């Protein structure tokens, strides 16, 4: 019998009725991304998605830094699942790639060890009096955007095309390690051919850059960054990627992981300040977008509502290339309607 290998690279993604779990760090560094995802789901795709107010951390950063023991992580994950169960949902959607890895790992452990599942049920019962069921489907939000990318394309006002040259924008896609490197079968295209972001870029008119260090870690690595003494190693990994992609002259970078978005953006500023080096020709750096920001820009959302002004590398040049209109005077208007103080400019990185 012929084996259909490509089937192994597919992933089941639920069609509707999602339970959304927010990320700890995304709301700080990319505050518009999660709101944009919920807006796309509700207004563009008319999907039912629950944004639970009573949620909390998945412990991911503490767990991977050996601060939080695994029994605690299991019980915390169980409590989050209990919120989903209580709300009547079975499709779990964690916003963060680290959380996605945590939920996948804990669920796999329970499925392979029923005694452990019973022990966690008992722990949760003792601690909170709550009960939980395992989700029928765990999908990362980038999986869902990927699934509905063609439907979204019909609603988009812009494409990933340089309006001055008419050529596709050249895009670096970077996928978080915990998306498919821990459990390859849980990612679209597994760890070898991850297509989740490449599929969006290709569908929306862009060109994916295949550069030598494409699958290299962004350098976050949890404990590598958390200790200041180890940050030289963390930034060296990002630098390796930037040096590898530089000759291909990318227009921007898109990622699906909060750590990757943050470090590939912020480390460009640090490298510019330390080494007086940027990886674009003009000295502005390479903009780093989340996939929600990319989708939101193409759908015609206000870039300042998306939170692009909060990135270290600014996106005005990219928006001009795509043909997105924006009002520079509104860039730093706060949610209270007042203009906020303008941040200091970096010494070397142009803005």
């Amino acid at each position, binding site marked *: 019998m012929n084996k259909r290998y490509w089937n192994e690279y597919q992933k089941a993604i639920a069609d509707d009725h999602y339970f959304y779990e927010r990320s700890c760090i995304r709301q700080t560094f990319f505050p518009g991304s999660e709101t944009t995802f919920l807006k796309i789901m509700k207004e563009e795709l008319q999907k039912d998605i629950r944004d639970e107010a009573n949620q909390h951390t998945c412990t991911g950063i503490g767990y991977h830094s050996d601060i939080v023991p695994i029994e605690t992580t299991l019980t915390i994950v169980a409590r989050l699942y209990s919120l989903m169960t209580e709300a009547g949902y079975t499709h779990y959607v964690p916003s963060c790639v680290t959380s996605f890895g945590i939920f996948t790992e804990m669920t796999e452990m329970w499925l392979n060890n029923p005694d452990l599942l019973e022990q966690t049920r008992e722990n949760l019962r003792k601690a909170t009096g709550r009960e939980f069921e395992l989700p029928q489907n765990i999908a990362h939000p980038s999986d869902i955007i990927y699934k509905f990318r063609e439907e979204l394309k019909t609603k988009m006002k812009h494409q990933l095309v340089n309006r001055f040259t008419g050529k596709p924008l050249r895009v670096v896609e970077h996928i978080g390690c915990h998306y498919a490197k821990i459990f390859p079968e849980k990612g679209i295209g597994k760890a070898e051919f991850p297509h989740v972001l490449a599929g969006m870029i290709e569908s929306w008119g862009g060109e994916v850059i295949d550069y030598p260090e494409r699958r290299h870690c962004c350098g976050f690595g949890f404990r590598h960054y958390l200790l*200041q003494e180890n*940050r*030289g*190693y963390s*930034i*060296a990994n990002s630098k390796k990627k930037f040096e590898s992609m530089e000759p291909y002259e990318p227009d921007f970078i898109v990622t699906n992981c909060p750590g990757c978005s943050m470090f590939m953006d912020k480390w460009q500023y*640090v*490298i510019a300040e*330390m080494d007086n080096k940027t990886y674009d020709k003009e000295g502005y750096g390479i903009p780093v977008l989340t996939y929600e920001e990319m989708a939101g820009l193409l759908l015609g959302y206000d870039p300042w509502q998306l939170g692009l002004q909060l990135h270290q590398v600014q996106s005005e040049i990219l928006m001009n290339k795509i043909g997105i209109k924006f009002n520079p005077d509104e860039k730093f208007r706060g949610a209270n309607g007042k203009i906020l103080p303008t941040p200091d400019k970096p*010494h070397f990185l142009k803005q």
Partner: protein
Amino acid sequence: MAISFGFTISQTRVVNMDNCDFGKLHQLERITPSFKKCMNCGACTATCSAQQFVSFNIRKVKSLYTMGQLGGLDKELAKCMLCGKCTLVCPRGLNLRPIIMNMRKLLTTK
């Protein structure tokens, strides 16, 4: 004006293992077979007394020695005060003092 971030960017290193000389490593493993049990966790470096005062990273020394990159290691190992705190925290229970002493001895003999 450059900003001080409290760290510098590590230099990338490529080692061609086909060209490495593993003679000293094999000698050390014969004298102290427990050396093979090290899993490079770095607990020794984190607790090192000498590292509080001078630039000294025992985990890095171990990695370089394992890859046959022996240049300058004798000077690095001279920074160790043999206090033994690393032995107290090693999760694999290695006694690092004889390992360091034997490394020093092997690096100074031909």
